[in-house]
């Protein structure tokens, strides 16, 4: 039964797609009917001609019946809209100039919002696509005194502490896992290759609920097993399915490949890709002890456990478990949802994306406003056509629908253009991410969801912004219009002027924000970083997993430095525990251990350990005391260097040289003072820094810095050769030119400046089009007035002046409103600005001047048109 109905309706779909044949059938059917009737009349004795006539009369108006049949089809509405769309397309084709400008305008608006929303989508909405039920996952985030978080923004805990957590809180978690990023050296036939990967607890994949693309994941009981990332599997293993079960050498030890992760799983941080996962206990087995193994802790809540209860239990456990690092005290442990953005970065990140979205939405708003203005002007220009259509009986409702369809079609075409623009824009953004030591893989290209949303937004904007012009057109008085040769639509431009002023205000906001970010980038570029990065290459080497012990470690480093310094073209080489601009370094509380100094002189500082040549190599200025010397070794007194910030915090207004601090249960004497510098990012606040001598620190991993006249690429190649000559199993990790790292740390500023600055430029152009539109419309409509004034002897300059003045008044009103708006809004951007105040007078002033200049420019063409109107032409328009 239902099938009959469905079939009946489907049959009529033919009316949509095979209209000619459906129409022919209808004609045939009626013709047949009339013929039968004719034959009937002939049988009744009429002449064939008379019979045909009567049959036709009896049948009545064929066309009317046809319309009746058409109306009774359910597809009628679609047919009507299709014909409206065709009509709209014809109209748009007739006016290619208008169509192009409108489509481009919309494309800019939709492109900006789509690009930004696709970033939001990939970063905030689907950050961990391969993880099952990510909403059940929580980071355990500790806050401790005396500790500053490192590790890509995770609040890390020691491995042993993680195990104690797992043992202390079983009622909370269905599984508690640990993970950390780490560089591996993968042995290949052509030497060791550095791979960025993760060390994890054995239950990591079980807890996350990821499904392998190939093979299986490790779990309890698997020893020396590794899982390959999909990207690594396809690039280095040629997507060979036979790789499962084979053995690879990782940091001098054999591991069995047991599985391949799905392409969507790259780890737990958006954009930072792990290419390999190995169980932490196996990897560390037999490794050096003493230094803690920092891990991030993530758990899946047990079903039925409420978050507040879970938090309370974890908090209680946190306070009860003694930290491995005796100098720190755990204050609290909180549970934070796993979102792919490290906890410490989350608030700022969301605010930044929110700001991006708001600016993009402003661009769309201005663009849509422009197009609405253009549509209004256009329907005014089409006054006669509209009047005629109204006169021949096209219903006003139908007319409004037609105009709405037209604006919607326009916005949809613009929407498609915008989507193309968004693909291009996200492509550029993705490429603009500089080469990182970590593998960055962030897919910000729009997915289907974003594209659908873009089209829906385009259609809705089309309807909303098309409605006012359409309603106004349809309100026109037909008689009046035909008498005067056209509908007078929008007889007053005051409303439109206010509208353009509002657009201007929004554009000012965009220009000011964009300007602030450009200035912020400028300030960051001009920053004195406190060292000289040019010509220096840095790379990390980690001996720890390779079984080096005691004196072997020191011997390895000195052997390496000797070899590197001997390479032709190399100026100097040095070691540091942390590379400059390699991300946040570890920090700790320190205090002065002078007699009489108290707890109040505690302060938090970052620290690094450097070999005697390093400060000289990096050209870090020593402004007091001395640099490290080779004689500062294990048996000599413990010495340190401090920077100006640390010195002034510990001993304000006093000479720091010769004073001592307490750190790690030892007293250290300050022997030198360095100038302040930038250590982790360009954008950081003045940071306290403390340098330990390398020989008194003894680390099994180091960042090698080499200054040379060789290109970075050649130098890195050469460093690999030298390293392989000492130990072929050790890979060079994170090798990168230091200037690139500085550039990388500028990436947020650069990104914001380009994108928001770009939005500002778009706003400027759109505002210009808006002013031009309203003035051109005005001149067009007042042709007669201008003509008469010209005829009465008004000088050209007066006419030009009137138009320009109108434009400037509108622009000035908008600019003033925009500046006030900006003054209120930019403080939200304050946290992202570097070296420039949110109310920077220069930026505000330049923006205002720029906007007025643009308005004057936009006014010139209509003004010239007004002055060129011939009186005779003006009188003829009526």
């Amino acid at each position, binding site marked *: *039964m239902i099938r009959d109905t469905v*079939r009946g309706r489907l049959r009529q779909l033919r009316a949509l797609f095979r209209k000619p044949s459906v129409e022919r059938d209808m004609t045939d*059917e009626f013709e047949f009917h009339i013929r039968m009737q004719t034959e009937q009349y002939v049988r009744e004795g009429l002449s064939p001609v008379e019979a045909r006539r009567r049959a036709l009369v009896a049948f009545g108006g064929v066309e009317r019946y046809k319309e009746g049949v058409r109306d009774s089809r359910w597809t009628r509405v679609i047919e009507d809209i299709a014909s409206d769309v065709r009509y709209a397309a014809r109209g748009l084709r007739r006016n290619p100039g208008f169509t192009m400008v409108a489509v481009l305008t919309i494309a800019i608006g939709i492109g900006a919002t789509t690009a930004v929303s696709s970033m939001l989508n990939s970063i905030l909405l689907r950050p961990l696509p391969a993880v099952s039920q990510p909403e059940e996952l929580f980071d355990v985030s500790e806050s401790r005194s005396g500790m500053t978080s490192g590790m890509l923004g995770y609040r890390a805990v020691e491995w042993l502490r993680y195990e104690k957590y797992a043992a202390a809180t079983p009622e909370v978690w269905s599984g508690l896992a640990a993970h950390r990023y780490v560089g591996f050296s993968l042995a290949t036939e052509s030497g060791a290759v550095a791979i960025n990967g993760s060390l994890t607890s054995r239950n990591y994949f079980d807890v996350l609920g990821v499904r392998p693309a190939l093979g299986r994941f490790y779990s309890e009981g698997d020893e020396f097993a590794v899982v390959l990332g999909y990207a690594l599997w396809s690039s280095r293993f040629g997507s060979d399915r036979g790789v499962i079960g084979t053995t690879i050498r990782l940091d001098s030890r054999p591991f069995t490949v047991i599985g391949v992760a799905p392409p969507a799983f790259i780890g737990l941080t958006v954009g930072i890709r792990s290419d390999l996962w190995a169980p932490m206990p196996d990897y560390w087995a037999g490794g050096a002890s003493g230094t803690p193994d920092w891990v991030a802790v993530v758990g899946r809540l047990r079903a039925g456990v409420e978050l507040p209860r879970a938090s309370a239990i974890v908090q209680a456990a946190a306070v009860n478990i003694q930290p491995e690092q005796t100098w720190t005290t755990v204050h609290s442990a909180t549970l934070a949802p796993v979102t792919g953005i490290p906890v410490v970065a989350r608030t700022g990140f969301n605010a930044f994306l929110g700001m991006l979205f708001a600016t993009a939405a402003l661009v769309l708003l201005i663009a849509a406003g422009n197009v609405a203005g253009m549509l209004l002007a256009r329907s005014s220009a089409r006054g006669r056509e509209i009047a005629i259509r109204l006169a021949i009986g096209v219903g006003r409702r139908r007319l409004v629908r037609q105009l709405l369809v037209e604006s919607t079609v326009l916005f949809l075409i613009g929407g498609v253009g915008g989507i193309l623009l968004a693909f291009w824009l996200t492509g550029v953004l993705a490429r603009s991410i500089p080469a990182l030591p970590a593998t960055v893989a962030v897919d910000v290209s729009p997915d289907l969801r974003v594209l659908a949303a873009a089209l829906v937004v385009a259609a809705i904007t089309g309807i909303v912004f098309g409605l006012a012009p359409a309603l106004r057109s349809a309100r026109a008085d037909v008689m009046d219009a035909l008498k005067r040769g056209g509908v007078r639509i929008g007889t007053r431009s005051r409303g439109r002027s206010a509208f353009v002023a509002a657009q201007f205000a929004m554009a000012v906001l965009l220009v000011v924000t964009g300007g602030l970010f450009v200035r912020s980038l400028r300030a960051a570029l001009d920053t004195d970083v406190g060292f000289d990065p040019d010509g220096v290459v840095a790379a990390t080497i980690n001996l720890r997993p390779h079984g080096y012990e005691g004196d072997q470690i020191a011997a390895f480093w000195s052997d390496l430095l000797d070899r590197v310094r001997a390479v032709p073209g190399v100026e100097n080489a040095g070691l540091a525990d942390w590379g400059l601009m390699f991300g946040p370094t570890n920090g700790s509380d320190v205090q002065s251990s002078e007699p009489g100094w108290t707890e109040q002189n505690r302060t938090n500082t970052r620290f690094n350990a450097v070999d005697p040549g390093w400060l000289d190599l990096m050209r870090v200025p020593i402004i007091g005391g001395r640099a490290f010397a080779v004689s500062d070794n294990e048996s000599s007194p413990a010495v340190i260097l401090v920077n100006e910030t640390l010195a002034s915090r510990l001993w304000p207004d006093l000479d720091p040289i010769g004073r001592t601090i307490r750190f790690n249960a030892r007293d250290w004497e300050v022997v030198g003072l360095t100038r302040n510098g930038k250590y982790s990012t360009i954008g950081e606040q003045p940071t306290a820094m403390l340098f330990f001598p390398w020989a008194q620190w003894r680390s099994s991993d180091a960042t090698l810095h080499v200054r040379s006249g060789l290109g970075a690429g050649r130098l890195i190649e050469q460093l690999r050769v030298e390293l392989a000559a000492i130990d072929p199993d050790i890979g060079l990790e994170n090798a990168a030119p230091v200037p690139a790292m500085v550039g990388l740390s500028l990436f947020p500023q650069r990104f914001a400046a380009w994108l928001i600055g770009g939005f500002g430029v778009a706003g400027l152009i759109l505002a210009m089009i808006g002013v031009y539109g309203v003035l051109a419309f005005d001149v067009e409509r007042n042709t007669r007035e201008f003509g008469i004034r010209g005829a009465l002897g008004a000088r050209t300059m007066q006419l030009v002046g009137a138009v320009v003045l109108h434009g400037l008044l509108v622009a000035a009103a908008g600019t003033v409103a925009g500046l006030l708006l900006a003054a209120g809004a930019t403080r939200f951007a304050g946290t992202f600005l570097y070296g420039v105040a949110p109310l920077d007078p220069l930026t505000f002033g330049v923006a205002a001047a720029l906007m007025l200049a643009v308005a004057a420019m936009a006014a010139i063409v209509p003004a010239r048109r007004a002055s060129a109107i011939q009186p005779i032409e003006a009188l003829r328009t009526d």
Partner: protein
Amino acid sequence: MRPPTGQPTTDVLRGTLELLILRTLSLEPMHGWSITQRIQQLSSDALQVGQGSLYPALQRLEQKGWLDSDWEQTDQNRRVRVYRLTRSGRAALKAETASWRGYVAAVESILGAT
């Protein structure tokens, strides 16, 4: 317009046309013109179906799935659209007939009650 036979006729009431079409087609499949003829004939020329309402009605019935139509060739080799009742059409005829009878009886009882 009156047919040449000159007999007075009544236009089919709105709403009953569909019922009449269903009833007519329940006898055999036929084309539009014969439906009008058959209705006229069965009502002894008392009812006249206007073409203007017939074809839209056929369209509606087909949309409801009560009718099905096919193009056939006549003996004189003309293309003709033949309508036939579907299974749901038959069921609908039954239901509509019952409801019509109920309606007529109700009206009748009012008209009869003086």
